[in-house]
């Protein structure tokens, strides 16, 4: 019997060797998994107030966005796309921008893109909304790196609850930029409109998830 086992390689020594190899590969597998998990993002760019009931919000207003870019129209363009995307979800009603402007003028808000809690309460009393959105457009347009160029957008949004003036949700998104493909083959990236829509879709996904 022993002779048979030896002949077919199922001896004790061979088995131990095989087990060792299996154990080693298991350890390596878990190590790789650990490294991969360590590299993953933590989702830290979203803040959501755990005590807030988002279901009660039916009417909202989108305040003018702050633009940190050189293009003056970009903030207005992004705001327009955001309003449309929000409306098209069917979950909330966004009041017309002209009505928001009237409210801002009536409430005498000095800095409408970053309103204080008092400003928020005052404005909500005039335009009758349950929440306000403010936003900062951090980057919009073409970026260059060496010989390559591509379009990029970086946007952060905040939702303020109008009863208390508190921030109840905040998120940011960056889309576009120079990819490896752009570096290797050129091409200039995707059009500005497409990456704007992608960034806003990403933010809306974060809002409703």
């Amino acid at each position, binding site marked *: 019997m022993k002779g048979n086992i030896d002949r077919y390689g199922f001896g004790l020594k061979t088995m131990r060797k095989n087990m060792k190899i299996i154990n080693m590969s298991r350890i390596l597998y878990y190590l790789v998994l650990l490294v991969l998990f360590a590299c993953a993002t933590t989702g830290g760019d979203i803040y959501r107030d755990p005590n807030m009931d988002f279901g009660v919000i039916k009417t909202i207003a989108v305040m003018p966005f702050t633009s940190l870019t050189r293009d003056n129209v970009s903030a207005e*363009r992004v705001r327009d796309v955001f309003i449309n995307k929000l409306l098209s979800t069917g979950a909330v009603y966004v009041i*017309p921008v002209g009505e928001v402007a009237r409210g801002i003028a009536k409430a005498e808000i000095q800095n409408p893109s970053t309103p204080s809690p008092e400003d928020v309460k005052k404005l909500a009393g005039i335009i009758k909304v349950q929440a306000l959105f403010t936003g900062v457009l951090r980057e919009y347009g073409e970026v260059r790196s060496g010989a390559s160029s591509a379009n990029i957008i970086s946007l952060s949004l905040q939702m303020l609850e109008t009863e208390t003036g508190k921030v109840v949700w905040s998120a940011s998104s960056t889309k576009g930029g120079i990819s490896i493909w752009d570096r290797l083959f050129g091409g200039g990236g995707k059009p500005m409109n497409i990456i704007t829509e992608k960034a806003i879709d990403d933010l809306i996904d974060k809002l409703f998830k």
Partner: protein
Amino acid sequence: MILSINYLNKMISISLFLKIKKEAKRKSKNIHSRYLSFLIILIFIVFLNLSNLEGMPLKEEKFFIAVFPFENLSGTFAPLKDFRALYIRKLKERRFQILSEDILERFMAKNRIRYTGGIDKETARALKNETNVEAVLITSLEHYNDTNPPKLALTSRLVSTGDNSEILWIDGFGLAGDDSPGILSLGLIEDPNELLSKAIESLTKSLENYFLKETGKEIIKGVSKKFQPKTYFRSNIFDSGNKYRVAVIPFFNRSERKNAGEIMVLQFIKNLKNAGKFDVIEPGIVRNKFLTLRIIMEEGISLSHADLLFTELDVDLILSGKVMDYQDYQGTYGKPKVDFSLQIIERRSRKVVWSSNSNNEGDEGVFLFDFGKINTAHKLASNMVKAVTNLIIK
């Protein structure tokens, strides 16, 4: 009257045709003569169609119109007087009766009319009372470029005079010299006058067709999906069976192109009117209301201003928007770009019932030999607005 003459003409033609057909039948005993009779039928059908469009007089009593001086929205210098003279000549050829130049000038001086891009109620009433014209033709030059290949965009509308001033007909054309170059570029138009003549001929033909068919209702033909808005919201409040009265208020112009807001307003008026489901208020009346009510829009129309306009203009919908980009290009290489957003507020609900964002470029979906390329922003915008209108009325 036109119809009766048309019928008479048709009856004579049909009786003649029947006689010839009988004769042909009698003689025809083999298969060849059958072909002959088919050929005769074909010739008669073609003859009938041609006689309807070309041979008939426009009207027994001529339609009396005033042609306002052209409004220049192109942002460049253009020989507008020559354009207008050519338009009047073409209209006279089509048997329209045109108000003489000196009477029009006297009327405009007396009533202190400086704005010729529209007509308000008072002016329309005064024009009817003082000159007895039935309608006024208002034309806007949207684009003019005489460098090779030339480009031109014109929109013209006929507005009735009297107490109930309304848009009777509106059409526009955006043409480029290299729209259809053909084989060996034999179809290229290098002379701007030739292009102008083509545009004005198309306008007069369209106006004449309006009178011949006695209807301004055109079914909007389907446009390619690529022109549809990139994002849109359509409220359930919209009832596609209803006919709405709409006021198109001035668009905000955030583009670098001068007068792009006014151009987009004309595009919407044209497409909404031709869709047949909207009564569109003459923009001159809307402008006048803005001035008299002292409405100044900061970023868009507020609900309080909207309420005022709903009551004053007696409309169901207010259409407003923003133009982000409206670009034409010079020369052979380039592409037009148009980017705009739109909002519609409804009277009863006081809510936004439509909101959309549209952006397109002239070379989208073009892969080979510029086949299908759009050369003017006018044509591109027209397709985009058509796509929006189709979605609104669906």
